[in-house]
C-alpha cells in the first residue's frame, strides 16, 4: 500500500499533492460545461466583466460618457456610426451602455460585498452562539426582512437624498439580512456536524472553529447567493435609478438611462431599449451563473 513509509517527508509534486482538488475542479468543470444555461451565464458575465474592465478604452465616443453634448445629433436612430443610436443630448448610447457596465459592476460589488460583509459574520455568530445573541440578531434580521427591500430602500434614499452612494448604502442596508438568514441556517446545520464537535474536543477556540470549520462549509451557498445577488443588486439599483433616486448625470448608469429614456418611448425606442437590455442580460448572466454554481456546489442537487 505504501512504499514511502520509511523515508522522511518527501514533498510531493503539486499535482500529486492536490490530486483530489484537481479532480474535484475537473468534475465541476465537466458538470458546468454540460449545462447550456450555466455556460450562457458564464459567457454573459464574462462579456460584462471584460466590458467593465476595458470599456472606456474601446468605446467609439469616450467623451460622451463624461457628459459631452452634441445638440446637432440628438436622438439619431441606430446606424453604423452610432450602433445604438444617440440620446437626447446627442451622446452615443453604445458608448454609454458599454461604460455603464463599470457603474453597474461597482454597484453590484459594493452592495453584495457590504451585504455579505455585514451579514455573514452576524449569521455565523447567531447560528453558532445561539441563545440571547442569536435572538437579538435574528429579531433584527427578521425586522428588516419583514419589510420588502425595495420599499425600505426607497424610504432610505428618499431620506438621504438621491445619488449613487446613497443608493448603494440604502441597498446594502436592506441587503445584509438575507445573508444572515442564509448563513445562520447553514451554520445551525454545520454546527451539528461531528467534525465541529471533534474540533471542540481537541480544544479549538470558537474563532478557530468559526474560521476553519463553519465558514468554509458555508461558503458554497454564500458564493451562489453572491453571484445571484450581483445581478439582483444591479437590478434593484436600476429600479431606484428609475424612480429617479439613482446615479446623477452624466454618469452612465443603466437604470437612470432607462428612466430618462422612458419618456422617449416609443418613437425613440432604442434609447430605453439598449440600456434596459443591458440590465436584463447582465442580471440574466449572473443569475444563470449562480444557478449553475448552485448545481455543482450544492451537493443536494448534485445527486446524479
Amino acid at each position: 500500500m505504501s512504499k514511502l513509509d520509511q523515508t522522511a517527508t518527501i514533498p510531493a509534486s503539486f499535482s500529486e499533492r492536490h490530486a483530489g482538488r484537481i479532480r474535484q475542479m475537473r468534475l465541476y468543470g465537466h458538470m458546468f460545461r454540460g449545462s447550456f444555461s450555466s455556460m450562457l451565464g458564464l459567457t454573459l458575465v464574462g462579456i460584462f466583466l471584460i466590458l467593465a474592465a476595458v470599456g472606456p478604452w474601446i468605446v467609439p465616443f469616450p467623451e460622451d460618457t463624461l457628459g459631452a453634448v452634441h445638440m446637432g445629433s440628438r436622438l439619431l436612430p441606430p446606424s453604423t456610426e452610432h450602433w445604438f443610436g444617440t440620446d437626447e443630448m446627442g451622446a452615443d448610447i453604445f458608448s454609454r451602455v458599454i461604460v455603464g457596465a463599470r457603474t453597474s459592476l461597482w454597484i453590484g460589488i459594493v452592495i453584495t460585498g457590504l451585504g455579505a460583509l455585514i451579514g455573514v459574520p452576524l449569521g455565523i455568530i447567531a447560528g453558532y452562539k445561539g441563545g440571547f445573541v442569536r435572538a437579538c440578531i435574528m429579531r433584527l434580521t427578521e425586522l428588516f426582512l419583514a419589510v420588502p427591500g425595495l420599499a425600505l430602500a426607497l424610504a432610505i434614499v428618499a431620506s438621504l437624498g438621491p445619488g449613487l452612494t446613497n443608493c448603494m448604502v440604502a441597498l446594502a442596508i436592506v441587503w445584509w439580512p438575507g445573508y444572515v438568514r442564509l448563513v445562520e441556517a447553514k451554520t445551525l446545520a454545520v454546527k451539528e456536524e461531528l467534525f465541529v464537535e471533534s474540533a471542540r474536543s481537541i480544544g479549538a477556540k470558537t474563532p478557530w472553529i468559526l474560521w476553519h470549520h463553519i465558514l468554509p462549509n458555508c461558503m458554497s451557498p454564500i458564493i451562489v447567493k453572491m453571484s445571484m445577488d450581483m445581478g439582483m443588486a444591479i437590478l434593484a439599483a436600476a429600479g431606484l435609478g428609475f424612480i429617479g433616486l439613482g446615479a446623477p448625470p452624466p454618469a452612465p448608469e443603466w437604470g437612470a438611462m432607462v428612466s430618462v429614456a422612458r419618456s422617449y418611448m416609443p418613437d425613440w425606442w432604442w434609447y430605453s431599449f439598449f440600456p434596459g437590455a443591458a440590465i436584463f442580460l447582465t442580471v440574466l448572466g449572473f443569475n444563470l451563473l449562480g444557478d449553475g454554481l448552485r448545481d455543482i456546489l450544492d451537493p443536494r442537487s448534485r445527486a446524479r
Partner: protein
Amino acid sequence: MLSFTLRKLLTVAGTMLGIAVLTFVITNIAPGDPARLVAGPNATEDMVDTIRVEYGLDRPMIEQFGIYMKDLITGDFGTSIVTTRPVLDELLRYAPATIELVVVAMILGVALGVPLGMLSAVYKDGPIDHVTRILSISGVALPAFWFGILMQLYFSVDLGWLPVSGRLPLVTRPPDMVTGSLLLDALIAGNLETFRTALSHIILPAVVLSFPCLASILRVNRSEMIEVLQSDYITAARAHGISAGRIIAVYSLKNALLPTLAMIGLRFGWMLGSTVLVETVFDWPGIGLYAVSSALASDFKPVIGVTLLIGFLFIIANTLVDLAYAWIDPRLRRA
C-alpha cells in the same frame, strides 16, 4: 392554543413596533423639510413655521418620535403633510388596489409556476427543462419597469388590445365598494362588463409583477421536485407499483409544494415591494404609488405607514403560509 395565538399576536405586534421604529429612524436620518414643500414656493418663513407647528415638525426629534409612537399604539398613523389627510384613511383607500394586484399576480405566478416547475423537473436536462429554466431566470432578471413599458407599448399602443394604465376606464363608474377589489365588487354587483374591463386593466401590471415571482416559484418547485423524485419514498412508491403519473401528480407534488409555499410567502413580500415600481409604470393607484409620491415629497408619515402596512400584510401572508404548512405536513400538526 390560546397562549400560542397570544404569543403569535405579541410577536406580530413587536415586529410592527420594530418596523415603526426602524422606518422612523431611517426616514429621519437626513433633515428634509416637507413643510417648505407644502407651504408653496413663495411662502414666507413664518408661513412655513405655521405648518411646522401644525405638524409638530418644530419639536425635537425625540419628542416627535415619542408622539408618533404614542399615536401609533392608539392606531393613529399620523397625518400626511402633503394631502393633510390621516395616513390611515389614505392607506385604507389605496391598499385594496395593491392587494388586488398582488393577489392576481400571485395567482398567475402559482398557476403557471408550479406546473412548469413540475414539467421541468420531470424532463430534467431535456429541452423543455432548458427552455423553462432560461425563461424563468429571464423572469427574475427582467427589470420590471422596463418590461412594463415594453408591454405597454406593444399590447396597448401597437396592438391596442389592452388599456395603457389605470384600473378602470374614465367613464365607467366603479361598482359599489364592498371588498375594495374591483374584480370582486363587479362580480358581487353582477356587472360582468365592469368585471371584464377591470380584468383587462389588471392584466398587464399583474403579468409584469408576477413574472419574477413565477420564475422563482418555478425554480423552487423544480429543484424540490427533482429532489423529491430521487427520494427514498418515491423509490418505494415506484417499487410498489404506483404509476409514474400518479407519483408525480400526487405523491411528489405535495412534498415539493412545501418549500414552494415558503417561497410564495417570501415572494408575496417581494411583490408588495415591487409595486413601488410597477404601480408607477401603470399608474395603479395603490400604496406603492402612494409611497413613491410621498417619499419624493419627503412626506414621511405616509412612507412609514406604507412600510408598516406592507410589513403587516407580509406577516399575515407568512402566517397563512405557516397554516398551510401545518395543514399539508402532518408532522407539524399537534393537538
